[in-house]
C-alpha cells in the first residue's frame, strides 16, 4: 500500500518520537551505570554523561566487599523466595477452594475477602497490629502480613473456573481426593497464571523497601532496597549540607563535596547491583507480565 505524503510525515514523526522516548527511558540507566564505572574523584569534576572518563571497577569492588550490602542482598533474595512461595501457595489453595462447586459458605467467604478491597484500617492500625504480634524486627514481617492477596485470588479463581469440569469429575470418579485433584491435576495445568502471578509477587518482594523501613530497626535485617534508600538519604543530606555550607571556608566545602560525590559513585554501583536481577530476568519473563496485565484487566 502506498503512503500519502501526509501519512509519511506522520510515520516519520512517530518513529522520531518513539526513538526519543526509548533514549529517554534508557538514559538514566546508562548514566548511572557510567557513573558507577567512573572513578569517584573524577566524577566530582563533572561532565560525566554518556561515557566513563576514568574507567574503574573500584566502586564495585568496594560494594562487593561491604558486608552490609552483601547481607542485604541475601535478605532480599531470601525474602523474595519465601514471600513468593508462601503467598502463591496460600492464595492458590484459597482460590481453588472457592472455585469448587458446592462449597458450603462460598458466597460468604467471597464477600469476606472482597470487602478488604474496599475497606482498610490504614497504615497506623496495621503497624500497631504487627507490633502487638511481635513481628517487629523479624524477617517474617516482610513475608507473613502480605501472604494472602485477594486480587491474585480472584485472578487464580477465574483461571481455575475456566478449566474444563470433566477433568475434575473423572478424577473424582477415579477416587481422587480434593487435595489430589488440586495438586496432581489443577496445579500442573496452571503454568501460565502461576508463572505470571509468581513473577508479580516476586517483583513486589524484591522492590519493597517500605515494610522494612517501618518494621525493622535492626540494620542487619534490611533488604537491599531499604539499605539503598538509607544510603541515598544520607547522601542527599550531606550534599544539601555541603551546599548550605558554601562560603564557610573553601577547604571544608571542597572536602565535603568530594566525599559526597565519591559516595555518589558507590551509591550508583549499589543501585546497579539492586537493579541487575530485575533487568536480567526481565527479557525472559516479559511475555508473562503482559499476559498477567491482560488477565487482570479482563477481570476489571
Amino acid at each position, binding site marked *: 500500500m502506498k503512503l500519502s505524503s501526509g501519512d509519511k510525515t506522520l510515520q516519520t514523526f512517530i518513529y522520531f518520537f518513539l526513538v526519543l522516548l526509548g533514549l529517554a*527511558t534508557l538514559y538514566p540507566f546508562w548514566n*548511572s551505570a557510567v557513573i558507577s564505572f567512573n572513578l569517584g574523584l573524577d566524577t566530582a569534576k563533572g561532565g560525566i554523561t554518556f561515557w566513563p572518563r576514568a574507567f574503574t571497577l573500584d566502586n564495585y569492588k568496594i560494594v562487593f566487599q561491604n558486608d552490609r550490602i552483601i547481607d542485604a542482598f541475601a535478605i532480599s533474595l531470601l525474602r523474595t523466595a519465601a514471600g513468593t512461595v508462601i503467598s502463591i501457595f496460600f492464595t492458590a489453595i484459597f482460590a481453588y477452594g472457592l472455585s469448587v462447586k458446592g*462449597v458450603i459458605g462460598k458466597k460468604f467467604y467471597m464477600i469476606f475477602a472482597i470487602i478488604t478491597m474496599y475497606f482498610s484500617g490504614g497504615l497506623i492500625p496495621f503497624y*500497631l497490629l504487627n507490633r502487638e504480634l511481635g513481628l517487629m524486627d523479624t524477617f517474617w514481617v516482610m513475608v507473613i502480613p502480605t*501472604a494472602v492477596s485477594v486480587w491474585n485470588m480472584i485472578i487464580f479463581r477465574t483461571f481455575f473456573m475456566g478449566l474444563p469440569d470433566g477433568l475434575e469429575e473423572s478424577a473424582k470418579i477415579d477416587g481422587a481426593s480434593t487435595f489430589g485433584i488440586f495438586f496432581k491435576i489443577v496445579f500442573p495445568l496452571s503454568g501460565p497464571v502461576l508463572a505470571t502471578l509468581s513473577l508479580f509477587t516476586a517483583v513486589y518482594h524484591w522492590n519493597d523497601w517500605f515494610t522494612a523501613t517501618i518494621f525493622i530497626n535492626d540494620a542487619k535485617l534490611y533488604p537491599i532496597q531499604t539499605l539503598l534508600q538509607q544510603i541515598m538519604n544520607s547522601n542527599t543530606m550531606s550534599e544539601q549540607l555541603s551546599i548550605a555550607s558554601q562560603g564557610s571556608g573553601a577547604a571544608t566545602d571542597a572536602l565535603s563535596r568530594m566525599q559526597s560525590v565519591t559516595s555518589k559513585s558507590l551509591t550508583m554501583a549499589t543501585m546497579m547491583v539492586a537493579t541487575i536481577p530485575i533487568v536480567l530476568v526481565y527479557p525472559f519473563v516479559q511475555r508473562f507480565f503482559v499476559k498477567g496485565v491482560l488477565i487482570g484487566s479482563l477481570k476489571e
Partner: protein
Amino acid sequence: MQTPVTANTAVSVPRRQKPLWRRFLAQWQVQLMIFPALIFIFIFNYIPMYGVLMAFQDYSLFKGFFGSTWAGFKHFEMFFNSPDFFRVIRNTIVISLLKLVINFPAPILLALMLNEVRNLAFKKIIQTISYLPHFLSWVIVSGFTISILSVDNGSLNISLQALGLIDKPINFLSLPEYFWGIIVTTNLWKEIGFATIVYLAAIAGVNPSLYEAASIDGASKFKQIFLITLPSITPVIIIFLILNIGSLLNAGFDDLLLLGRSAMLRDVAEVIDTYAYRIGIINNRFSYAAAVGLFKAVISVGLLTMANFLARRAGTSLW
C-alpha cells in the same frame, strides 16, 4: 407459566439433603484449603479495620487498645482545624489531578503511536524498553531522578548549561516550584510504557475491515486514528478513567516519600498518606494519625463505590 413448574415438581421427587454439618464435614478438604487464607485475612485486614477505632481514643502504647481512654472526635477536630489540613488536602488533590490529566492520557497516545509502527522489530524493541521502568523499585527510580537532577553535575544541569539556558546549576530537588513537575515526569517515565499494554490489546481487537473501508474512501492515517481507533477503544478508556477517579485520594506514596522527604518541600509534597505516616509512625501520635487515615478511608470508599457504580453502568465492573 404455571403448568410446567407443577409438572416438574411432580416428576423430580425432592431428595432429602443431609444436614449441613454432615455435608460440611464431607468436604473438609476444600474447607481446609480455604481456612488458612481466611485466618490471614481476618488478622491482617479485619483486625486493623477494628483497630481504626483508636482514632476515637487517646491511644497509648503502654495501655494498648483496650486500656486506652476514649476521646470522641477530638482528633478529627484537631485535624480539621490544624494548619496542615488545607495544605495536605490541596497537595493530595493537586498531585492526584496532575497525574490524572497528564499521566492518564499519555499511554493512550503512546499506544496509538505504537500501533502505527509497521516495523515489528522496532515496535518490539520500543515496547521492551518502555515496559522496563515499571519493574524497578521506587528507590531505584528516585535514585535516577536525584542523580539526573542533582545540582552537583546532574545531567540536566550540565545540558542546560551547555545549551546556555542557565548560568548557574539549579537545585531542582529542593525548590518547591519544581516538585510537582518532577513527580509527574518521574511517574510518567516509570509507567507510560507499561500502561499501554491494555490499550494495545484493545486496539488489536478493532475490526480491520473498518480501516480497509476507510482507506478506500481515502481517509488519511491521521484521520483513521481519530475516527476509527480512538472511538473503538473509548469504552476501555472510560472504564480506566472511572477507576482512576475512584482512587483520587491516592496521590502516591513511595514517590512522594522518596523525592519529597526534605522539610523544604513539605509544603508541596505532603499528602494525606505521607502525613499520616509522618505523624503516626515517626512522631508516634497514633490516634491522630489513625483519624487522618480514617478520614481518607471514608472518602475513598465513597469514591470507589461511586466509581464502581459508574463502571457497572458503563458495562463492566471491578469484580
